[in-house]
């Protein structure tokens, strides 16, 4: 390490949150960049995707654009944000479009949000954009509403790090008009989009989720700020409630079942809202290495890793009776609420699982048990 001259404080992160392509996230981000530049701040655009939209292109006028870096991958010429160039340029603020983007293999980091963390660490403030459907913990609800499985997600803890989350709002009707006029996509792609994702009811539901999410983000930041500097300002009602309700500790039960990912997301989301601690625990038979099939072990491992990626502490327990082992752990660790997946309805082969869930429900006479629905299965109908 070189003896760095007095380290710059971490940059500020501002996220412009929308609910679909075309609501004006990028436009708003650039508008804010222009405003900050006008105030005398040193602003550059690190990455920007115009999608050929004239209004947006006009907004970049006068802003310094850092050229993209060319990357050759399997003979293909691809472009990515040029992090080394931005770090060398070292601006005060950098606008970075499409926060959830996955980088081309061969770049230093897999995800654009990881690139943004590097900029923030270097003391560069970042303005960025994302849609509500990219928030990890909402993945299942989004699929339920839109029938679309979103693959590029951002863990909630990354969004929590933002200093500010600003909503880019537009009524669905206006969005649909824009789509029909070909502002958002070319006409052919627009027709496709109109028939699928861009249905008025789907858009309204996503928009509602975005509004509530931003309200939540505002609430969390305001409570933190008030807790720091204005304890007297805390709403007396909510304080009384907070005093009366002891803080919760949530345990998420990890299995090899494909429903586990949804369970983890749901548990994480509830824990975040309740400001509760969160564990993910799996129970294996003693000296499991011999008994468990390779695929089962791999699935459990993947789920544990997924939980850790969402900043959930994980544990592996061993015991002959999984329900007893789990409950014993909850009692010793002061867990107040257990999250389990709903057992599948099918008959014979899964009887064991069904018994496990009901065993926990029956045995957990002194704690709360939340049996989480498999929304994935329902949405398939």
């Amino acid at each position: 390490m070189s003896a760095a001259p007095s380290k710059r404080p971490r940059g500020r992160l501002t996220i412009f949150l929308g609910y679909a392509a075309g609501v004006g996230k990028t436009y708003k981000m650039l508008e804010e960049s222009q405003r900050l530049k006008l105030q005398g701040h040193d602003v550059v655009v690190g990455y920007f995707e115009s999608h050929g939209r004239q209004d947006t292109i006009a907004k970049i006028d006068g802003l310094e654009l850092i050229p993209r870096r060319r990357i050759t991958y399997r003979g293909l010429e691809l472009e990515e944000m040029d992090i080394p160039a931005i770090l060398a340029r070292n601006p005060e603020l950098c606008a970075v479009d499409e926060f959830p983007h996955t980088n081309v293999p061969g770049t230093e980091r897999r995800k654009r949000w990881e690139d943004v963390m590097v900029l923030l660490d270097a003391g560069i403030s970042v303005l960025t954009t994302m849609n509500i459907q990219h928030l990890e913990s909402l993945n299942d609800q989004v699929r339920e509403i839109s029938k679309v499985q979103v693959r590029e997600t951002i863990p909630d803890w990354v969004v929590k790090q933002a200093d500010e989350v600003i909503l880019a709002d537009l009524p669905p009707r206006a969005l649909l008009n824009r789509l029909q006029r070909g502002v958002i996509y070319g006409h052919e792609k627009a027709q496709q989009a109109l028939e699928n994702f861009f249905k008025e009811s789907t858009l309204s539901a996503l928009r509602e989720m975005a509004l509530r999410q931003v309200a939540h983000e505002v609430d969390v930041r305001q409570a933190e700020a008030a807790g720091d500097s204005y304890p007297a300002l805390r709403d007396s009602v909510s304080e009384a409630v907070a005093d009366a309700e002891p803080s919760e500790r949530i345990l998420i039960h990890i299995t090899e079942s494909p429903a586990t990912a949804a369970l983890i997301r749901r548990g994480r989301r509830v824990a975040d809202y309740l400001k509760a601690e969160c564990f993910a625990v799996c129970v294996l038979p003693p000296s499991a290495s011999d008994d468990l099939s390779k695929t089962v072990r791999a699935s459990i491992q993947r789920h544990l890793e997924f939980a850790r990626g969402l900043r959930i502490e994980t544990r592996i327990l061993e015991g002959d009776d999984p329900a007893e082992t789990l409950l014993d752990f909850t009692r010793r660790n002061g867990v107040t609420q257990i999250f389990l997946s709903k057992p599948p309805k099918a008959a014979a082969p899964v009887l064991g699982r069904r018994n496990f869930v009901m065993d926990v429900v029956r045995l957990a006479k002194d704690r709360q048990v939340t049996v989480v629905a498999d929304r994935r299965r329902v949405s398939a109908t």
Partner: protein
Amino acid sequence: MADIEQRRPTPEHLLQQVEEEENRASRGRLKIFLGYASGVGKSFRMFDEGRRRRSRGGDVVVAATQPTEPDEVQKLLCDLEVIPSRVVDGVPAIDVEQVLRRHPQVCLIDGLAYRNPPGSNHAERWQDVEDLLAAGISVVTSINLQYVKERQAQVETIRGKVVQDSVPEEFIRAADEIELVDAPPEYCTPGSAGADAATLSLQQHQLSQLREIALVLAADVVDHQLEAYLKRQGIEQVYGAQERILVCLTPPSNASLMIRRGRRQADLFYGDLYAVYVQQNGLNAADQLTIDQNLAAARAANAHVEILTGEDPIGCILQFAHGHGITQIFIGHTQQGGGWLSRWKVNPVERLIMESDGIDVRIFPTEAAVQ
């Protein structure tokens, strides 16, 4: 979801729908830009929309501007036709007669919450807007959270300021479109560069609270519109966009804990709280008293309370839950071999878990078990 169900509409329903469609077609459309404080840029967004509509060939006029509009808004106004306000005793009012005579497609009104001067047709500006809409003129207008009547008490406790003018929330909910204009709180504190850190921090805190209220208000309006839209389309659909918690009240359950937790979770998720009790015959006096107390507690917690009747309590609860878009059911732990539900062979809680498709079930310990 599995709950999507295309209902065959009845003739009465169809007739009502046709009438509503006709009304909607002849009426102007109302669009409202909602901001949480002045400075977020509502006026700009509104006039910019006017400019865009005009450039696409729309017939747009401006019928009201704010006493002072920022430079970028002034610039937009240069390209728009303005029907000047009537001013009586220094109080501006929309010149409704002029607007009706001119009869544009779209009328822009910056500032919905104004009291009209004496002698006007209506006491409030939003009533003038009603006339324009009825005449088939679409209106695009702007309002600040502090002028929404039902939210004023809340806003006043935060800001310590009282404003006189107001618009009923019902009018805003009935708008065809609402657009929330969101911006960082700094936008709303111009000229505070010289203010000390404590003042700034206090301002930020107040603005954040207003922002949260405005966002939730907009979300509620969107939810309301979504429901109306689905109803018009004849779709009974349950969406998970909003958390809806259902507390099941039974005599042995720890109802007060469930209601408290339900209320808290509903508040944190900006969701709704429901409570149901499935009527039973032959309750002893003590159980009846408990139920009455629990129902009162649920009402006090502002839950939507309903008493259901039916032979099969779990079936009633499930039917209610699926019909109301419930996302989580709270129910008390049932002791095997005892309690009101023991006459069913399958443990009722187990049955609820198995049959509540798409709904989470949260089981609460009985009071005795916690102590």
